[in-house]
């Protein structure tokens, strides 16, 4: 496999990783109001070949759940509180923006790799 081909496959794995990340962030955001929901986090992992990246196993954030005061809620305990989710909107938005920026950067690299390879072949053309 040529350098260009392996660069393309590495970039593709990074694109897929960022797409998975944005999927997980959207799941967290959608469940902001779900009682007892713990936000999902997943570490980035280097694959066996040492070049491509992938998302590791999903873990649940173990920080304490937010205590919401609502005595009329069916899940409310004796003090009128129930467990909300531990999703922080600010963190999720920042993560989503980071994923977007990284996706854009990888798209640019993909395009640039393609252009470089195409220009190399263009040398042989008159």
């Amino acid at each position, binding site marked *: 496999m040529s350098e*260009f*081909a392996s660069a*393309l*496959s590495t970039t*593709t794995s990074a*694109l*897929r990783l960022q*797409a998975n990340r944005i999927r997980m962030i959207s799941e967290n955001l959608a469940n902001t109001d779900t009682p007892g929901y713990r936000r999902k986090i997943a570490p980035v992992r280097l694959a066996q070949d040492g070049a491509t990246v992938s998302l590791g196993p999903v873990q649940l954030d173990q920080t304490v759940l937010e205590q919401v005061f609502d005595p009329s809620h069916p899940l409310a305990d004796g003090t009128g509180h129930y467990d909300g989710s531990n999703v922080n909107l600010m963190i999720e938005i920042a993560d989503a923006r980071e994923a977007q920026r990284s996706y854009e950067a990888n798209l640019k690299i*993909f395009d640039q790799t*393609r252009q470089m*390879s*195409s220009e190399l*072949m263009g040398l*042989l*053309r008159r």
Partner: protein
Amino acid sequence: MDIRSIFAAQKYAATRAATAATPQPDGMAASVGETINSFQQALQMTDRTSQDALAGTADPHALVHALAQSELAVEAAVTVRNKVVEAYQEILRMPI
């Protein structure tokens, strides 16, 4: 029969082995074959991935990757073919 013609026949038989064409492929033919094989593999991967993508089992990243890969492979193959055809035409134009 003249003894000299027998010697000549023996000499001829001995020389023929040295001038016979070597059937095993040399380095260049092997490398060209390898390149064509990898080209074919890239095209087959694109075929498979685009079928999977249309069936909904492959993600769009894999499809884009396979298409870009095969585009580059086809571009390289076409460029090399054009060069070969150009060289052939150059030989045909050579005055004898």
